[in-house]
């Protein structure tokens, strides 16, 4: 597979904040990359530089080997984290307007169908609910039938059903070989949709790779968690995470026996298969930060 989009050494500074501090990413055609990271990590800044919306202080972005420019704009679909829509015009008109900008847009009815817009087509943009608006913005991103779609927190504000629909939609456009770059705060979403995730914090990429392989690299076996109150002192190996003690265990039998031997009250114990959220917390230490 070929690299479709490549960012090299991106940096962006706002006053005293180094929002992005040397990010390099190569994205394979047809894959889905998820950028994860705590608030203010620099995700939006990074993808806006990759979209060509924001000029980087340093670094370059290339699309199929060429620096991004006019041609690139015809090939990308973008959903910003926050966008205003023209006022006083309806969803239908907005969609037609944006579709008219592109050489071979997706048929109107198809977009309406994919993003479940049929009920709100004649509604004024200003009168959409948060989730309806989100679906509308998504429609604007996929209407151009782009080669690359950037989605900045596309499911924030969606109800669980709409979120599942969104997942189906992303899988659908992936089947058409569309490359997807998305940011999200939902780890289950990243795990289901993304072929690769990049975990960012303070403007840098901490880890990047396939979710399962990343988990395999960072965790062995299962995570055993015991509420902090049930353990006393350092008689048990493990580390304190938030309000509980967490033990990585490759052999649950053995761990249980050790815990019982140490006289730990197993009442509140839970066993957990490590997921991206655990990795996220481990890497960014976000619950401990601030």
């Amino acid at each position, binding site marked *: 597979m070929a690299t479709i989009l490549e960012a090299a050494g991106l940096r962006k500074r706002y006053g005293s904040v180094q929002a992005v501090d040397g990010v390099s990413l190569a994205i394979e055609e047809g894959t889905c990359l998820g950028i994860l990271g705590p608030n203010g990590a620099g995700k939006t800044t990074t993808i806006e530089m990759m979209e060509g919306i924001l000029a980087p202080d340093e670094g370059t972005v290339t699309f199929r080997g060429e620096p991004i420019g006019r041609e690139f*704009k015809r090939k990308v679909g973008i959903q910003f984290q926050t*966008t205003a*829509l023209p*006022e*006083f*015009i309806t969803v239908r008109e907005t969609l*037609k307007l944006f579709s008219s900008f592109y050489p071979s847009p997706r048929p109107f009815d198809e977009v309406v169908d994919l993003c479940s817009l049929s009920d709100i087509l004649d509604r*004024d943009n200003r009168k959409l609910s948060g989730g309806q608006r989100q679906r509308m913005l998504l429609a604007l991103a996929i209407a151009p039938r782009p080669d690359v779609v950037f989605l900045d927190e596309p499911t924030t504000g969606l109800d669980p059903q709409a979120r599942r629909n969104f997942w189906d939609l992303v899988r659908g456009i992936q089947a058409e070989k569309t490359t997807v770059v998305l940011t999200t705060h939902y780890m289950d979403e990243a795990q289901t949709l993304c072929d690769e995730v990049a975990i960012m914090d303070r403007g840098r990429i901490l880890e990047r790779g396939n979710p399962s392989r990343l988990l395999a690299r960072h965790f062995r076996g299962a995570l055993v968690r015991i509420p902090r109150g049930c353990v006393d002192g350092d008689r048990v190996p493990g580390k304190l995470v938030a309000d509980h003690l967490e033990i990585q265990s490759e052999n649950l039998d053995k761990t249980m026996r050790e815990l019982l031997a140490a006289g730990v009250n197993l009442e509140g114990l839970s066993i957990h298969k490590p997921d991206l959220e655990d990795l996220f917390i481990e890497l960014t230490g976000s619950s401990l930060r601030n």
Partner: protein
Amino acid sequence: MKQFRTMVYARTMEFVRDRGTFFWNLLFPVLLVFGFSFAFSGEGQPLFKVGVLGSPPAALESPASFLAIEQGRFIVYGPEESREAVLDRLRRHELDMVLDPGSRSYYLNVQGRNASLLRRLAAADPGLREYVERTVTGAPIRYVDWLVPGVIGMNIMFSCLFGVGFVLVRYRKNGVLKRLKATPVSAAAFVTAQAVSRFLIVILTSVVVFAGTNAFLRFRMEGSWAALLAIAALGIVSMEALGLVFAARLRSEELVNGLMNLATLPMLALSGVFFSLEGSPDILKSVSRALPLTHAIGAARAVMLEGAGFGRIAPDLLFLGIFSAAALALASALFRWE
């Protein structure tokens, strides 16, 4: 092309559905025209003015002459004023009578308010015994005839400056422009679509306002509609271009609002919207001549009131054209999406 049409359509719908702005653009000038026509419908000044071609005969300066009575006023026109030009003033009711001692005749406008009075006075005046009466015709110019080009010009100014300039700044501030920047649309195409939409709206509202008030007030119209439309079109383009200069990169609606008020106030005062600048200091007149609205309104008045043709208004049209081109060049050099 389709993209362009869709953009023009979207912007136009945005305007039409914004009911408040829409009706304000139509209603405001109509109210002004009717209001002023009502306020100034009473009789004008009581004195009559007599224009004299060349030097006045001595007999007229004697106290026995009717021209010596209080309300009368002489205006002596030197040789640089042609007879026809002075007679035109009589036709437009700027003068009530013209004396031509050279040909021993006096002229009256048969439609003049004071014509029959002046005829009797002249007949009784020993100094004019040998004079023959000649007449011209011409309907009086009411203030509202003079005012209507000003009000429509003012409406064009507001509608273009705020409709193009202010809206663009709002788009920039709330992120609509950023969203458009992410599409293949060029800034030039987008801005042109905005301007074309506004052009259509403004030319249409101007025609509606004019026709609507004309139905009741029957304005004086001496010249051609084509000339009037040409002036309106160039006036609109020049005001839009000015609006684009303001909107090229500002992000703050408050700031652009302030700047536009700063620009519109002098134009309101110095472009002769509500009152003529004749007789004001030269410095004000030269400032006035540098304002595009002055040329648009002045040319429209010349066409409507004096029947000026394209030849006479060409300098004004040229000024508007050059002003627009310069402003557009400046705006496109300054323009930023964000």
